[in-house]
């Protein structure tokens, strides 16, 4: 049962539990009006210690479209964090006012730690360069709406795979499904972290390759997941500048992709996808953003025990 559970990491829920969320999301997309009063009287707290456009707005829009209300902060200095209040005390306080919370924090593991101090459901809206499980829900819903299911497909991940939390969460999720193959395209310094390679991919016997070129591999991909080099995770600006423009997807590179290869990106993008790709029908990153609201509506309902 999903009521009152926390979603911090894709490993927190079973395949069957995720199936419940996706099924509800598809139903909401089909008839959003039917769900417009589902969360009347409920409050979502959004605690964003890091900048956000899509994630925060989609959580807030999701709750409002369910008939609920939203409180929160989008900047830690506008809260008592500026006075030195701990994460645990902040969450314990928020629990007095809200029914459910979504938290984004620059430090890895902050939502996991916070979940130990509260009883209400807590959603990890992104913790440093670690995990972003609701982006994965968004990505999977998009994949299902485009290709029916996630099984038996080859997924390419390109860009910053070391600090790319959306990559880590998506790989962790997909590794539970049959017939998946991964191609990791990145500079050597930005390869997937050891725990993803050893504990997730290798341990589950998933075929994968780690390469540093896009073109030779694009013809194999069902989905190409592009990512931004995460400037905010680098301690050294010079390293960021050296690595940031290594992989840029443009119209010329798109000629190497199949007619049925879809391009995904969690956004925001900087320059890793050229705007000349935006009107290509295979570019699905803005549809991803829209799907994010619907899947968060489903998640909120499930964690509040409404459906």
């Amino acid at each position, binding site marked *: 049962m999903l009521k009152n559970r926390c979603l911090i990491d894709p490993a927190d829920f079973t395949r069957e539990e995720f199936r419940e969320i996706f099924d509800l999301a598809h139903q909401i997309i089909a008839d959003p009006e039917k769900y417009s009063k589902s969360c009347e009287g409920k409050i979502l707290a959004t605690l964003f210690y890091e900048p956000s456009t899509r994630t925060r707005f989609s959580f807030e829009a999701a709750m409002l479209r369910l008939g609920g209300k939203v409180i929160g902060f989008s900047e830690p200095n506008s809260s008592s964090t500026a006075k030195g209040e701990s994460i*645990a005390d902040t969450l314990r306080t928020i629990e007095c006012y809200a029914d459910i919370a979504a938290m984004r*924090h620059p430090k890895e*593991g*902050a939502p996991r*730690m916070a979940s*130990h101090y509260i009883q209400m459901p807590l959603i990890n809206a992104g*913790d440093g360069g670690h995990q972003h499980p609701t982006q994965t829900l968004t990505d999977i819903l998009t994949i299902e709406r485009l290709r029916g299911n996630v099984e038996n497909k080859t997924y390419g991940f390109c860009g910053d795979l070391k600090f790319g939390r959306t990559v880590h969460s998506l790989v962790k999720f997909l590794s539970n499904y049959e017939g998946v193959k991964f191609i990791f395209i990145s500079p050597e310094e930005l390869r997937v972290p050891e*725990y993803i390679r050893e*504990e997730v991919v290798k341990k589950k016997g998933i075929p994968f390759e780690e390469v540093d070129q896009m073109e030779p591999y694009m013809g194999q991909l069902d989905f190409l997941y592009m990512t931004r080099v995460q400037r905010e995770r680098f301690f050294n600006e010079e390293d960021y500048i050296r690595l940031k423009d290594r992989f840029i997807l443009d119209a010329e590179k798109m000629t190497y992709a199949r007619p049925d290869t879809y391009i995904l990106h969690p956004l925001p993008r900087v320059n890793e996808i050229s705007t000349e790709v935006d009107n290509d029908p295979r570019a699905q990153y803005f549809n991803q953003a829209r799907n994010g609201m619907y899947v968060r509506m489903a998640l909120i309902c499930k964690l509040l025990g409404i459906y």
Partner: protein
Amino acid sequence: MLEINSIERGIVIDHIKAGYGMTVFNYLHLENADYNVALIMNAFSLKMGKKDIIKINEVIDINYDFLGLIDPNATVNIIENGKTVKKVKLEVPETVTNIIHCKNPRCVTSVEHYFDHVFHLVDKEKRSYRCEYCDDIVVPYPNK
């Protein structure tokens, strides 16, 4: 030949991998002991070549998780009246709390200091552990 007497009542931690005896000694804060303690380093061992041994002339509380983490092949004998009355079998612990500390500067443990540092066993052979919060993998005491 160095000789240390047997103890009448206490604990003998034997077959510690050579070089790790001081680590165990320091973790148990034996430098503050007001009872007899002996740390023998690089003693001859038929099985291991050389080993470290700690003899403690007092029955104290020992964190067996820590010993299992350092060297699960070490032996712990509880001594009464000069005889071994109990042998504790050590295991590589599945979870360790507040023994290993995460060194990842991006981990929440680097800025919030009031909660337990928890690590979970990843690979028993390699003795690698994963931070509960950031998933960083560490090998604090390699199986060499």
